[in-house]
């Protein structure tokens, strides 16, 4: 049994650079297509929604999601970064959808460090952007001159360790769950679908890890802005 990511197509650009179309790429496109269809559906449906009437059914669900996230975000972040709520909502929805796609038997795109590291890197860039935007002097001073300038390399490594730790956390959880589930399926004469295992590793752990990733990004951005 192999846990490698299968490569469908590889395009050689030069001796060292190779462009790979892997399982992760395909599954990411599937996730993106699902989210895009959902977004278009909501957009088209929302034309007929009357804000003066009581929301029902699907509209209620969508409003619950958005409202719940706004409330949760206001609780965990400070007001300086309130305008970033839609970005973090996108992040949590994308990661949760990527993790949940493991139920269908596809490999979750987040079970690939090449996927989680760019996500963590985007959080890192948001953090730096927020820090430079709201208090440029204090932020740079906090990195390069705290407590004295000799500690600048240590502070820099501490900052750079944040996206690495963030991406390893998500990646490790997803790969661990994936390996455990596929080991269960590799047991000979295993005719039962291990529903509780799927329930925990795909649904509960997947959504939880998406929320943890996003909340940590929110906290990083919030501390950079204050």
């Amino acid at each position, binding site marked *: 049994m192999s846990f490698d990511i299968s490569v469908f197509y590889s395009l050689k650009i030069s001796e060292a650079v190779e462009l790979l179309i892997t399982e992760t790429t395909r599954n990411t496109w599937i996730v993106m297509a699902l989210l895009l269809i959902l977004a278009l559906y909501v957009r088209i449906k929302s034309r007929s929604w009357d804000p003066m009437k009581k929301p029902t059914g699907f509209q209620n669900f969508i409003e619950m999601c958005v409202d719940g996230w706004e409330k949760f975000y206001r609780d965990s972040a400070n007001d300086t970064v309130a305008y970033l709520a839609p970005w973090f909502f996108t992040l949590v929805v994308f990661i949760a959808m990527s993790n949940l796609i493991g139920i269908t038997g596809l490999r979750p795109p987040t079970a690939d460090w090449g996927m989680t590291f760019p996500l963590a890197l985007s959080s890192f860039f948001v953090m730096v952007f927020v820090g430079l935007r709201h208090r440029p002097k204090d932020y740079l001073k906090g990195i390069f001159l705290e407590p004295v300038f000799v500690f600048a390399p240590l502070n820099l490594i501490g900052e750079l*360790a944040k996206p690495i730790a963030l991406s390893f956390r998500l990646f490790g959880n997803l790969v661990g769950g994936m390996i455990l589930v596929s080991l269960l399926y590799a047991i000979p004469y295993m005719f039962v679908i291990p529903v509780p295992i799927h329930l925990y590793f795909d649904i509960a752990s997947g959504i939880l890890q998406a929320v943890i990733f996003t909340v940590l990004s929110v906290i990083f951005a919030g501390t950079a802005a204050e």
Partner: protein
Amino acid sequence: MQNPLAFVIAISHIAAAIALLNGLLVPLGQGNVAANAVAAIGRQPEAKGTITTTMFIGCGLAETSGVYGLLVAMILIFVNPLLSRYAPQFIEAGAQVGAAILPFLG
């Protein structure tokens, strides 16, 4: 030692098992988080929602070190850097980078 490669592979697998041993302490931390959350809910039942959310996030964070152990074990088993032809450079660079980064990861 007849076959150095077999020796390296065997030692790598033992090292993977040792790396997974830090999973011994993770449940302790998670249990601590859950116990304190239960105590907090007992004291303040009206704050149940906030406490539950915070507890889940705390549990996920406490899981982190166990996940790092799992990652080290997986690297040692599936993509063992000691077996590649760049092994000497890997060991040297890894020792330096590890010594620099490790204190900050926690």
